[in-house]
């Protein structure tokens, strides 16, 4: 299953990078006379209500989704790892303060807080990335804090401390690397979560704005044509489900490799 996940992710990434140059149609070009036409040899996924090629838009949407997911995961995991490791290693009031902040942010359902933030800041790609990162770091910080509490008692960390290594050196060279396997698993699963969140926001009209192609926006546009042109809804939906499933399979596979204790369970 992990191989299937890796293959799906690889295909999606390749398609997102090179796809838009290979498809014969621009994702924003309109052929109004052919609007809502179903799949054909020329237009594999058919055309939408403005006569735009859905296959080209699905590929461009992949680029949007993967880009948002990558930026959010990199920003939130980097920040979360730093905050979690400092809180876990230093303890005291820093740990107490970070713990309270994590409790407060976790008291909000993630998507709700994202919706609220985007509603305040205004719908745009940059604001989605900002809002998702602002919430995303919390789960990484919580995970890394717990891993750091375990790691700081390890012998090689004590040895580094005894040799007079500075806190930043101990964290960067010894503690954080031990937390990375768990972070990598979380980040892989997180990619799927961010893709779903971005699509949900775009579906609600709070995400990527037209004419930029986004799977969530495409699904929202297709709602009005569920009966007469279901292909508007089917293809972007399948794209989201398959890519998220790919990341979930890959994340599960990585967990099996990096955290063998759970191999027999999940």
């Amino acid at each position, binding site marked *: *299953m992990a191989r299937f996940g890796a293959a799906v992710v690889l295909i999606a990434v390749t398609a997102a990078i090179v796809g838009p140059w290979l498809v014969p149609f621009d994702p924003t070009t309109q052929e109004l006379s052919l609007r809502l036409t179903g799949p054909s040899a020329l237009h594999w996924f058919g055309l939408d209500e403005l006569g735009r090629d859905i296959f080209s838009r699905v590929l461009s949407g992949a680029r949007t989704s993967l880009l948002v997911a990558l930026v959010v995961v990199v920003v939130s995991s980097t920040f979360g790892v730093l905050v979690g490791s400092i809180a876990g290693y230093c303890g005291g009031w820093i740990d107490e303060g970070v713990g*309270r*902040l994590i*409790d*407060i942010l976790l*008291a*909000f*359902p*993630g*998507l*709700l*807080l994202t*919706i*609220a*933030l985007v*509603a*305040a*800041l*205004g719908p745009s790609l940059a604001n989605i990335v900002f809002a998702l990162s602002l919430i995303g770091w919390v789960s990484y910080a919580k995970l890394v804090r717990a891993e750091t509490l375990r790691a700081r008692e390890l012998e090689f960390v004590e040895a580094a401390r005894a040799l007079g290594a500075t806190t930043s050196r101990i964290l960067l060279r010894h503690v954080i690397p031990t937390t990375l396997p768990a972070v990598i698993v979380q980040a892989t699963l997180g990619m*799927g979560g961010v893709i*779903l969140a971005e*699509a*949900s926001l775009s*579906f*609600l*009209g*709070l995400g990527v704005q037209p004419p930029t192609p986004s799977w*969530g926006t495409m*699904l*929202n546009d297709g*709602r009005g044509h*569920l*009966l007469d042109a*279901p292909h508007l*809804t089917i293809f*972007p*939906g399948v794209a*989201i*489900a*398959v890519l*998220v*499933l790919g990341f*979930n*399979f890959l994340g*599960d596979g990585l967990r099996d490799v990096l955290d063998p204790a*759970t191999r*027999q*369970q*999940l």
Partner: protein
Amino acid sequence: MTRFLVRRLVVTVPVVLGVATLVFTLVHLIPGDPAQVMLGEAAAEEDVAELRARLGLDRPLLEQYGVFLSGVVGGDLGVSLRTGEPVVDTIVDRLPATLELTVAAMFVAVGVAIPLGIFAAVRRGTLADFGATTLALAGVSIPNFWLGPLLAIVFAVELGWLPVSGRGTLAHLVLPAVTLGTGLAAILARMTRAALIEELRKPYVQAARARGASRTRVVLRHVLPNSLIPIVTLVGLQCGVVLSGAVVTETIFAWPGIGRLLIQSIGFRDYPMVQGCVLLIALIYVGVNLVVDLTYGLLDPRIRYT
């Protein structure tokens, strides 16, 4: 138990205060003048000034914060900019619909997930287990805003068995509840399977089997109750996800709950209503987490004393 309850309640206070502070901050995150944004660029200066004064945005920030907090405590969240109705009244009108949908989705999820998780755990490593776990992972990956319309096409439009949208009868509840419950069912099935596998390894299981207890009896009477803590934790934690998901599901099925109200209010830039909806959903979530924690004490008495 009383000490455990009091201690847990005390820990909740700063979280509630933090949630209220974050909701208060939302209006101040609006770029530019919030009153101008709410009324639109074309609004007259005197209307903007009037709204600014009505919302208290012309007062010092600390004073605004104090007024907001006292309003939260006193159940006064201001009035809707769109309807002029008190925010709390509108939310209270919509609350039953959201709670009905959330509880129904939870029932769907638990009703599907626990049997599926048990089925996969007792047949671990078989093709049936593989099928069940793959199904669960697929359930996590399918967006509810895609599943909902597909279910509506099949069961409402093609088969005509269920209404496509609105609220009223039990039949209206089925499609939204299934749509909202599927994601949770998938996560819960995975957790149930993992918790049961962990528990099935323990010596008391072999002991019970050696005494002649059937496999069904061992699983249902001994293993399942002992696996409940992670399952209850997950149900509690996922309550927030289900409430968030309700925002999308209510929009798809025109379900007249708080989620739909929130999205409509965002469209109308009715920020007092947006604040009210966000605050209420977050407080429900905090409340459910508190209940989950207290439930631990009932499920496992050792937790009360730690």
